[in-house]
């Protein structure tokens, strides 16, 4: 991994996030995270509940800012204090729930149109025109799900898998710098999850974009992506690059975790979910 300045897509510096600061329930969700994501990096992030995975994505997306002193830099722009809607040009995101990433009452083409405009201010020109419709049709055809013939179907009539596939296209259309995937196959049945994961890998490869994929599933984290990051108690404890990741097994991962975190790996949920 060569760390020349111009191919870094995302830099996180000293990112901390504390919730319920003045109460007994104070939670240190992120406790000093430094992370560099490079051009065409596909990072899978794994960790147990409360490790800080979702908080990390929310910080990158701008849902909330990090604590003072932390920095978020995307493509050389300091976006630390930019609100979420002003980061749309940089960040594409797919959520766990299909109903969050797509607007159910709008049609497929209307959803895609909103996503296409991520880098442009919305104006008073007609949202859908022939040229855009043609572009959407081509984008959807590449999914191989037949959605290109259903541009006028309200999205709520699609299945969960189709909606997540559409959400994926929406998150990557308009060329954002980085794609954030927040356990985006967790609500799908195993076969559909496979399909959507396969699509994810294809799209990330084709669009040549950087991606961060949060998952609960160790095997998914091992099989997909070029780089693996493991989080624990608000810190990144394991960061494995492309060459080492290829030969990595679940046992190796647990050993790496125990060495780095200095404690026994006790999270059954991750082990169990690796056997799905």
């Amino acid at each position: 991994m060569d760390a020349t300045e111009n191919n870094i897509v995302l830099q996180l510096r000293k990112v901390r996030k504390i919730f319920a600061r003045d109460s007994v329930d104070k939670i240190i969700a992120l406790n000093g995270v430094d992370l560099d994501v490079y051009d065409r990096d596909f990072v899978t992030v794994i960790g147990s509940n409360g490790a800080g995975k979702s908080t990390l994505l929310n910080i990158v997306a701008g849902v909330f800012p990090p604590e003072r002193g932390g920095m978020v830099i995307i493509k050389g722009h300091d976006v630390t204090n930019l609100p979420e809607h002003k980061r749309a040009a940089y960040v594409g995101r797919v959520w766990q729930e299909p109903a969050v990433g797509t607007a159910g009452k709008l049609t497929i083409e209307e959803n895609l149109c909103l996503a296409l405009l991520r880098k442009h201010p919305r104006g008073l020109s007609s949202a859908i025109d022939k040229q855009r419709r043609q572009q959407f049709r081509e984008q959807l055809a590449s999914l191989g799900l037949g959605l290109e013939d259903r541009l006028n179907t309200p999205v709520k009539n699609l299945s969960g898998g189709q909606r997540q596939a559409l959400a994926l296209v929406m998150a990557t259309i308009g060329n954002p710098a980085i794609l954030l995937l927040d356990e985006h196959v967790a609500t799908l049945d195993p076969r559909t999850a496979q399909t959507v994961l396969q699509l994810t890998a294809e799209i990330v490869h084709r669009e040549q974009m950087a991606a961060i994929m949060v998952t609960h599933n160790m095997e998914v984290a091992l099989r997909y992506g070029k780089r693996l990051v493991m989080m624990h108690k608000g810190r990144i404890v394991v960061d494995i690059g492309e060459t080492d990741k290829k030969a990595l097994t679940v046992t190796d991962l647990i050993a790496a975790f125990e060495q780095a975190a200095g404690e026994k790996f006790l999270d059954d949920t991750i082990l169990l979910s690796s056997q799905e």
Partner: protein
Amino acid sequence: MDTIASVLSVSLYEGLVFGLVTIGVYLTFRFLTFPDLSVDSTFTLGGAIAGVLIVNGVNPFVATLGAFAGGLCAGLVTGFLNTELRISALLAGILMMVGLYSVNLRIMGGANVPLLREVNSFDVVAGLLGLGGGMVSSIIFVALVVLVFFLILNWFLRTEIGLALRATGDSEQMVRSLGTDTNKTVLLGCALSNGLVALAGALVAQNQGFSDVGMGIGMIVMGLAAVIIGEGLFHPKGIAPILLACLGGTFVYRLFLTIALRLGMPPGDLKLVTALLVIVVLAIPYVQKRLRHEWMPPAQRL
């Protein structure tokens, strides 16, 4: 025959003018998922502003536009309470409904403003059409107003901004992540909605010859009932069908009320007619599915 014609023409007039209220209610309830209950008071606000301006010698059309602008501002305040002060949508609407009651009294300087001796916009239109002020010219006038707003909304809701507004109620999170400040779409939607409602109030006040502090009571219930009837009867898909379903739902609703009144039902019973009508429209699809032994999800509580 004459009775039927008069029932139909009254319902047509009311379906059109109150249809503006229904479209306003649809904007907030359905597109924004923002249950804005301030409608009762913004309807009166429209009547109050138009009434006072006309009494003070302002051109009636300008007065009507003034009422529209007043409604826009009231909607902005409701939206502001929600987006900037984080007051829940339901409570923001209720607070505006309560607060505006006093504002309306202040604007009118009393409980009502008589307009019978003033020249209002209906009189002007009747004069232009040479119809001498009957139901026909009233219908033509409100139909023109509704047509103008229908065309504007049918265009606007398909634009890029309109699309973002319509998506806001579906998934605010998504709309923000795709680059639209949903606080702004909520403000815009609330303003437009209440502008339309106030416009309807201004027209109703002029046609009935007075503005009254109680004239908006029940508007939110009417608007919701008409939305539900319109959706239940017409299953609209697309912007123009939705707008037409709002108008159609209002027409059917007013038709039932007019018939009930003509049958000699005391006005006090009309609320029950409203409730029964909404229950029937909501229950029909459920009963149909029951008869076909289709699976139904459990009842919703919110």
